[in-house]
């Protein structure tokens, strides 16, 4: 989220698309209701199903799963055509005026530089034209046809309302009503907020879905302002934190990245991470990358990281592929390339695509370690539970460890919420029986490994032996100590410009601005610097005051970065520093500095006349309509059909799917065709449950006891399926037998002239827990991910459905 949960109340229009905020985030959704009641906001919901969010919407329109880019590109076209854009904002704060390199082009569904063999692009030409100093060329008059705005206009020109309606199945009148409501927020003092979640990410074009919306928001001047923003409603309590702390294949805490094979030296590594400004005077904050990296390495390896050994650069592993994500991991597993797997609070058998493949993969492991508070299906993947889990234990040679862990109520620590708040929580009771914290278990494994390497030697023991482990209690380091480690401290006296000592050696740092690249500072996660200072644990603060009552509580907990609550808040004021919306200012220029209710996302004393752009992390200082080479599948979003789709791509039949998506051969073989599987399946959560956890909670098991799918009345009649009757839903990859909920809330859509039916598959059931046993939705889903992030395409795939006699017929 760029903004806070409460800030949603300042919106004039709330667009929920690519998510179902009311069901997945009910308590955050209250601020939508507040916006409606106290700010007269209109709530628009665009979703394949009439959801519980839609039940309180002012306007609802259906959309076929997987066509959001077409819908939103059409919105961009509408805004440009009607000239309902926030002109001043677009000119000053976006890259609309910058000129794109000659070689870049788009034709018949492909951008320039495509290599059909590797399914990837050579992105050299996805750049600006640069002048002699290396700055991007600019044409403020927008007359140059190579201006970003003109290329974008040309790119979206194909997305006429008729085309959008044919692709998305959204009736034209409904679509135009929504365009009109959205366009109303192009006024400087009006804002729209975009609330989305996995409804956008879980597609083979997931990242581009979000980019398209971000482009809409930039056109409307809705980024950085109160009541605006791009608000990704994250799913799990600390998935933001785990991402911030870099628990992803290619990440280092604080959005630094691990080296690749070709970056053999530290200098090679830094070359692509310097982020030299692309326009004069820009902050291009990633220029400080080296400081963050060196400070991180000092945290990891302490004295063993020196200037001489390039800050222990070689102690980090290097990547030979973009990342070893989950889809790749299980692809390796089924091919016998992985021997051991550790699941920490994670249930891949239920959560990952193509469940049968996951089971096959797990069955090939030598050992599986599951750390969890609950009895997960994954830890019992070897059990025979009939058709629900048809394993043969005798043939599975995997050693399985099921380790009981504490839960939230039994430990101290911080979680990062969707709005980037780090909130401290306190232990309320002891864990049951012999359950232990994840920290204790990870430390236990580490100590045993380190002992074995000390005693026996072995492959490259250096990083293990040199890892910093100077905790007061090495067996179970305290959360406080680890939090301080992430904040970082001075390793030597730090002097300011005048030569005075600003921070004494050993003291906690106040800000990442204090980090150095000479080894005198350390920080486990630079974006968290300031969270645990000499003043104490800032994340435990509980002051609820909210200046201006605008949904910013600066002294409640702590928000990264730098306790900033609204990202890009410089863009809430015009070029001269006056708020676009005087009724809801965030920061403004008072003649000598930036003042307001939030920490400026900007140099606090940079004058408006200096021409420094508000998007300080970007090298050109502006928001990007043209994404340069940052996306693997194109600098502009383009509509590609889901990997399994009932229709051909109306825009370019030859390029049906995302051409840059990575698809493994055996996964491709598991894609079904519309002839065999004519209906669109989409998976989702229900508000009564949280993934596969709450089926273990009695109340939730009572509130939603049994697996079912949702099907519209028209298709149900056609198929002879009765409400509450049994059905068999199948995809190329597997099938499930469950109850049918025949509903008016799913209606057939007309796509490319044909009726298209959607079947909704809630995902919460499995073979452990208190609820009735079920298959789990991922028995159906395809193993393919978004081209950029490899997020599985759970939201659009092909299925068939037939009436069934129930589970007895199956056994």
């Amino acid at each position: 989220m760029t903004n806070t949960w409460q800030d949603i109340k300042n919106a004039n229009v709330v667009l929920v698309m690519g998510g179902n905020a009311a069901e997945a985030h009910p308590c955050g959704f209250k601020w939508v209701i507040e916006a409606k009641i106290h700010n007269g906001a209109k709530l628009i919901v665009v979703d394949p199903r009439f959801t519980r969010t839609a039940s309180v919407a002012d306007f609802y329109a259906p959309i076929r799963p997987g066509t959001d880019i077409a819908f939103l590109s059409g919105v961009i076209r509408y805004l440009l055509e009607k000239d309902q854009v926030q002109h001043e904002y677009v000119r000053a704060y976006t890259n609309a005026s910058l000129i794109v390199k000659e070689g870049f082009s788009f034709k018949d569904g492909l951008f320039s530089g495509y290599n059909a063999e590797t399914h990837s692009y050579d992105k050299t030409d996805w750049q600006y034209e640069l002048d002699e100093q290396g700055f991007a060329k600019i044409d403020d008059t927008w007359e140059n046809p190579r201006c970003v705005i003109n290329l974008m206009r040309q790119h979206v020109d194909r997305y006429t309302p008729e085309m959008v309606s044919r692709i998305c199945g959204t009736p034209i009148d409904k679509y135009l009503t929504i365009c009109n409501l959205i366009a109303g927020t192009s006024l400087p003092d009006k804002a729209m907020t975009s609330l989305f979640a996995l409804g956008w990410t879980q597609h083979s074009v997931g990242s581009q879905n979000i980019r398209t919306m971000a482009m809409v928001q930039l056109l409307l001047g809705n980024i950085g302002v109160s009541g605006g923003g791009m608000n990704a409603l994250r799913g799990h309590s600390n998935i933001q934190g785990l991402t911030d702390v870099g628990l992803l294949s290619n990440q280092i805490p604080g959005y630094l990245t691990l080296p690749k094979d070709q970056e053999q030296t530290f200098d090679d590594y830094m070359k692509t991470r310097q982020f030299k400004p692309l326009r004069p005077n820009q902050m291009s904050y990633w220029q400080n990358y080296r400081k963050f990296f060196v400070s991180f390495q000092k945290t990891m390896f302490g004295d063993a990281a020196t200037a001489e050994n390039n800050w222990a650069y070689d102690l980090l592993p290097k990547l030979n592929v973009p990342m070893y994500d989950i889809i790749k991991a299980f692809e390796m597993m089924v091919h016998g390339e992985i021997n051991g797997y550790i699941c920490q609070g994670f249930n891949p058998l239920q959560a990952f695509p193509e469940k049968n493949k996951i089971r096959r993969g797990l069955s090939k492991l030598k050992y599986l370690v599951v750390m969890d508070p609950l009895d997960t299906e994954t830890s019992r993947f070897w059990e025979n539970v009939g058709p629900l889990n048809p394993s043969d234990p005798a043939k599975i040679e995997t050693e399985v460890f099921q380790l009981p862990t504490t839960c939230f109520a039994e430990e101290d620590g911080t979680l990062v919420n969707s709005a980037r708040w780090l909130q401290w929580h306190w232990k309320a009771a002891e864990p049951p029986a012999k359950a232990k914290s994840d920290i204790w278990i990870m430390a236990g494994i580490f100590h045993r490994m380190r002992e074995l390497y000390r005693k026996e030697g072995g492959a490259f023991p250096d990083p293990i032996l040199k890892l910093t482990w100077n905790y007061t209690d090495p067996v179970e380091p305290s959360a406080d100590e680890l939090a301080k480690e992430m904040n970082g401290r001075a390793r030597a006296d730090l002097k300011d410009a005048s030569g005075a000592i600003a921070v004494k050696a050993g003291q906690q740092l106040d800000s990442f601005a204090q980090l150095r690249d000479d080894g005198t500072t350390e920080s486990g996660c630079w974006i968290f610097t300031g969270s645990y200072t000499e003043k104490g644990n800032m994340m435990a603060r509980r002051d609820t005051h909210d200046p201006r009552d605008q949904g910013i509580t600066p002294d409640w907990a702590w928000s990264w970065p730098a306790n900033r609550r609204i990202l890009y808040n410089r863009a809430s004021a015009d070029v001269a520093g006056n708020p676009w919306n005087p009724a809801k200012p965030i920061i403004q220029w008072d003649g000598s500095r930036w003042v307001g209710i939030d920490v400026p996302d900007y140099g606090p004393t940079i004058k408006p006349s200096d021409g420094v752009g508000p998007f300080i992390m970007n090298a050109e200082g502006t928001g990007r309509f043209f994404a340069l080479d940052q996306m693997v599948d194109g600098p502009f979003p383009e509509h590609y059909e889901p990997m399994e789709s009932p229709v051909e791509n109306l825009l370019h039949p030859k390029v049906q799917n995302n051409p840059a998506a990575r698809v493994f051969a055996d996964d491709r073989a598991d894609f079904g065709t519309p002839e065999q599987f004519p209906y669109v399946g989409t998976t989702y959560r229900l508000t009564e449950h949280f993934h596969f956890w709450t089926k273990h909670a009695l109340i939730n098991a009572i509130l939603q006891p049994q697996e079912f799918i949702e099907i519209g009345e028209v298709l149900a009649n056609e198929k002879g399926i009765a409400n509450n009757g049994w059905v068999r839903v199948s995809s190329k990859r597997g099938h499930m037998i469950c109850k049918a909920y025949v509903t008016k809330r799913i209606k057939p859509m007309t796509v490319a002239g044909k009726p298209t039916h959607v079947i909704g598959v809630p995902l919460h059931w499995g073979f452990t827990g208190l609820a009735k046993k079920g298959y789990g939705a991922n028995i159906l889903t395809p193993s393919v991910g978004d081209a950029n992030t490899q997020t599985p395409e759970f939201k659009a795939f092909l299925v068939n459905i037939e009436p069934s006699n129930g589970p007895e017929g199956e056994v």
Partner: protein
Amino acid sequence: MTLTRRGFIKLSGATLASSSLSAMGFGGCGVALAQSVRLYKLAAAKETRNTCTYCSVACGILIYTTGDDAKNSHGNIMHIEGDPDHPVNRGTLCPKGSALLDVVHSPGRLQVPKYRAPGTDEFKEVSWDFALDRIARLMKDDRDAHFIAKNEQGGTVNRWLTTGMLAASASSNETALLTWKVARAFGMLVFDNQARV
């Protein structure tokens, strides 16, 4: 009549109690009314501030535990409700959050370390030492056998691909940092979290 014997005894007990109150006369009305409202159950419970474990709204919660933390009092979590001070949820909780008590005390909570040997069809309880020693042994053997120090071109890569890890989605940042340190010190790259699913 489906009254079981046990039920009969219970009912008789209740009858005795109520009849002795009402003593043949004008019902038990006056006596019972004085106790008509259930006692407020949180009166002396210990209150701990925490954060809901489910979604990323991160609602503030108040966990109520029995006992006053005295040495001999083993606190039991008996109620969880929303923290009215929390700026986002302001005391509200969704159906998952309102039922947090049932996940804390779920019969599905794991109690002891268990181990399933190859080819068998059951979990057996084991000691922590057995589990962690065995895990370390398996991991070291695998790492030693499959660690890649140099790639085919002779470049230093120092990676271990044959053991992977999935990090949690509800564990704390502090757990996350420690996990990162351990996993990367081993050279692991098959490393992911729940951000995408």
